[in-house]
């Protein structure tokens, strides 16, 4: 029954583009093949730009996996030889009449879609069986079904964090615990993971990242001949997939046989002492945390030796795989924090190798000043090309990447109340959210026999059965830049520096898909240059060309901020806007003529502070001589906002601030 219902995309197996026909991409192919040789490696992550055959290759591995001996008909693919790991059913069979009937079965290769819900990952009550017989039995989820096989997650960095955490936990311990819907089941789930991701869509949480044994940075081919060959093969494939697959069948079969042979050899393959020494050296150089790197590298080297038909893994194998096993675990040195500190949560172990191309691929450029005429009076326009390198520490744990343990305060409330977004699990808590039909049915199913009367419908559902959908909405936050463009800030490099800081924040906002707005003030007024939008490009353009000069109408800027934020909060009351106020704190244009601009500003600040949803950050663009005696000190106090100087930013103190903000 299960097999007929669940095909998980397997009806497209006969269309796979053969891995043998993938041009180039040797590291990727190696990593995947090693996982086929030794699924115990745990996982392979493919990181790369779009359109580089990542998912084609990952999926192609399905047809290279050797068949496995299984207990016949067992949905968990129990291994008849490993009696300790049998599922409850097979265990029953085993204790009744010794060896259960066994046979060969293709190794499972399942795709984990992003629209997944918890019950399908972990398993849930077998509804039909429960309705008919009143028995509560587990229908395995993807983790159970993928036992002794591979789970593939495309765009793994976009996986709902809660599900990612469950996945991780199960893969780490090789078992699944289901305690829900009257079920209490524990079963083995030895699952190898393949993940693929495009780093432009945001980073992968460090806990998930660390789980992978090997990570491959996949790049497009740059050799014109290879590129042409890719097109040629692809055109032939698309014209007639079956014929194309047939023409590669021989090669594919050869690889299959090699994998089977390598698996057999693997148990006896040892790591030579020289290889061990090299491994230790390499790991020390990397400064990676924990022992995952060593273990992964050692295991992968053995698998490689087995694949190459060698009896032992030497320094060659270790050296060849060091990049794949260690590079992504490299601790960023510029961070300067002791290894293992909580700071690790903030900066993922991103080697240079893995930083997002948006920030590092462009060479740092110096600020360039351009003057432009502005209706007779000259206003200086500073062009800022790229955020300078020092700012690329701005990659804290993504707000959406945190596991359930780290969810705190506001964020979880937002999740609990939300009625839109992704439905990923159900809850018996009644908060007026839409009913989760599947979970409700499962809750009601075991009682059907008892509730069934002569005239009752097929299913009798009672109040306590009701389950609600829990949604998570992936909206980013709103970041509002309120930028002082007055003459006093206009000290040439101060403004350029301030813009660089703002651009770095924008870069971050882009990845997190935050929305940004821009208010600038100078001369006689404040202006909403950009109403909140997720078109960060626009914000960048405007910031670049922002003219400076004139007086400092700070009070008016705060009024404009308030107006704008009020509208946004009315639209989405769950929003927690972040207001980044960049100024040197020298207001000289009062709202009401004759009043003191300082006092006016502070009063407005207190007023703004009254809304607990608002968060502030002060970027002091002053050079810092006046320290706490300036208005900025008082303003920071009133707004309960961290106050950072541009120098702080340059020294990476932004992290500390982001950390605080998350609490």
């Amino acid at each position, binding site marked *: 029954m299960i097999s007929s219902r669940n095909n998980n995309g397997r009806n497209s197996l006969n269309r796979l583009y053969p891995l043998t026909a993938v041009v180039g991409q040797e590291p990727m192919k190696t990593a995947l093949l090693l996982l086929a040789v030794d699924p115990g490696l745990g996982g392979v992550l493919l990181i790369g730009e779009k359109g580089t055959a990542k998912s084609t290759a990952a999926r192609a591995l399905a047809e290279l996996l050797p068949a496995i001996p299984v207990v016949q008909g067992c949905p968990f693919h129990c291994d008849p030889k490993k009696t300790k790991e049998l599922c409850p059913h097979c265990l029953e069979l085993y204790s009744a009449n010794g060896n259960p009937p066994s046979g060969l079965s293709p190794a499972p290769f399942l795709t984990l879609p*992003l629209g997944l819900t918890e019950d399908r990952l972990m398993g849930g009550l077998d509804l039909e069986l429960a*309705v008919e017989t009143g028995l509560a039995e587990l229908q395995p989820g993807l983790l159970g079904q993928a036992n002794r096989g591979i789970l593939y997650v495309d765009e793994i960095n976009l996986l709902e964090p809660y599900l990612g955490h469950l996945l991780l936990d199960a893969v780490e311990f090789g078992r699944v615990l289901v305690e829900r819907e009257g079920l209490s089941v524990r079963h083995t789930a030895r699952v190898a993971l393949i993940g693929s991701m495009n780093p432009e869509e945001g980073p992968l949480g460090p806990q998930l990242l660390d789980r992978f044994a090997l990570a491959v940075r996949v790049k497009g081919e740059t050799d014109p001949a290879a590129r042409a060959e890719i097109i040629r093969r692809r055109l032939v494939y698309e014209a007639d997939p079956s014929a194309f697959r047939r023409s590669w069948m021989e090669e594919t079969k050869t690889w299959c046989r090699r994998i089977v042979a390598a698996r057999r050899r693997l148990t006896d393959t040892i790591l030579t002492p020289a290889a061990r020494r090299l491994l230790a050296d390499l790991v020390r150089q990397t400064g990676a945390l924990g022992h995952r790197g060593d273990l992964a590298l050692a295991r992968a080297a053995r698998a490689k030796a087995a694949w190459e038909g060698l009896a032992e893994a030497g320094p060659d194998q270790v050296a060849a795989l060091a990049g794949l096993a260690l590079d992504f675990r490299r601790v960023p040195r510029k961070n300067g924090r002791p290894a293992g500190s909580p700071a690790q949560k903030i900066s993922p172990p991103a080697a240079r190798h893995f930083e997002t191309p948006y920030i590092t691929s462009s060479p740092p450029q110096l600020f360039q000043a351009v003057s432009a005429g502005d209706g007779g009076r000259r206003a200086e326009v500073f062009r800022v090309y790229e955020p300078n390198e020092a700012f690329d520490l701005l990659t804290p744990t993504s707000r959406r990447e945190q596991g359930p343990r780290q969810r705190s305060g506001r964020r979880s409330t937002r999740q609990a109340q939300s009625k839109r977004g*992704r439905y990923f699990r159900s809850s018996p808590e009644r908060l007026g959210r839409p009913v989760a039909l599947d979970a409700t049915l499962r809750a009601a199913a075991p009682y059907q026999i008892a509730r069934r009367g002569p005239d009752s419908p097929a299913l009798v559902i009672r109040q306590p059965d009701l389950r609600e959908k829990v949604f998570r909405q992936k909206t980013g936050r709103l970041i509002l830049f309120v930028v002082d463009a007055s003459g006093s800030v206009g000290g040439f490099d101060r403004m350029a520096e301030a813009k660089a800081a703002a651009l770095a924040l924008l870069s971050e906002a882009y990845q997190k898909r935050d929305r940004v707005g821009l208010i600038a003030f100078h001369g006689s007024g404040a202006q909403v240059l950009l109403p909140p939008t997720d078109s960060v490009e626009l914000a960048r353009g405007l910031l670049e060309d922002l003219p400076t000069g004139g007086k400092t109408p700070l009070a008016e800027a705060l009024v404009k901020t308030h107006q704008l934020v009020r509208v946004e909060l009315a639209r989405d009351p769950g929003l927690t806007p972040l207001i980044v106020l960049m100024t040197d704190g020298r207001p000289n244009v009062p709202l009401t003529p004759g009043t003191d601009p300082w006092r006016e500003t502070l009063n407005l600040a207190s007023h703004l502070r009254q809304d607990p949803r608002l968060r502030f950050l002060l970027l002091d663009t002053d050079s810092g001589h006046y320290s706490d005696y300036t208005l900025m000190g008082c303003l920071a106090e009133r707004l309960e906002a961290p106050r950072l100087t541009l120098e702080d930013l340059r020294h990476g103190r932004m992290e500390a601030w982001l950390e605080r903000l998350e609490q």
Partner: protein
Amino acid sequence: MANGRNLRETYPFPALVGQDAMKLALILNIINPALGGVLIRGEKGTAKSTAVRGLAELLPEIKVVKGCRFSCDPDDPEGWCVECAAGANLEAATRKVRVVELPIGATEDRVLGTLDLEGALTEGRRRFEAGLLAAAHRGILYVDEVNLLDDHLVDVLLDAAAMGVNIVEREGISFSHRAKFTLVGTMNPEEGELRPQLLDRFGLCVKVEGLSDPAARREIVLRRMAFEVDPEGFSTRWRPAGRELTDRIGAARKALKLVEVPEEALGRAVDICLALGVDGHRGDLTVIKTALTLAAFEGRTGIEAEDVDRAAELALPHRVRRRPFQEVRFHVLDRLKEERKRARHTEP
């Protein structure tokens, strides 16, 4: 427009004035669904949606298994859904290729499919109720204002588009079916940009602008007024033009298999992509496929250099590597000339 009578009548595609790039891109996608769709970028009121809706008239017919919810192809048993695979005495039927609209406020279960409520309540059985992705299989999935699509919908859309299969593992349901569709999206870039991964899923990308030629503008107004006064009469008058185009598309579909790709064309496509720093290989491939389709549309059996250049203008604007926050740039070949000039200067 509020007039109930012309709600049903769509503005005929051939009656659109100007916007040749957009029209061409749409037509090429009908001829060759493997191109991967079009992203139409432009301001409001530039006939983006009108063009897509008008497209429905031009679409060819396809063979489907009669009564199949997943529009299985009777000639392709390997790709059949579980229901067709299990069924006996399947009958074939023909119907027009569909345009399925994905509203930006759609729920995830509506898009992916969900648990069939009735079956569950009356029989206590779980059945899969097909969603929009199933309806769009072998057709066109149209997303107006695609840049405003909720993030989680983008995610699931990417998932399905990546392999042409919709895998559903949710709400107690475990089901999968083919979902190969041509993705057509319209957007106003002022309202926000698309995520890189989704951007790459669109085969072609065109920009529409308000026309600046006064005569053309007058013509737009005249035709629009004529349409609103008498939509049926207007459509009748344009029917022959529509039929002619449909025939041409049909001929091109047949001719597509005959077009050959010479080595020079391959080389040229690769050169262009390398020079422009196009990520990945989808760009190269799309340029070649677009060039092929262009040649077929114009009744030629070989690709010429010019086809590759024209194809590059359609297939690369959104793939050319941009600096952070830089806007999508059109006129790809101008950009190419700049790059080459610079390369010559830097070489000693």
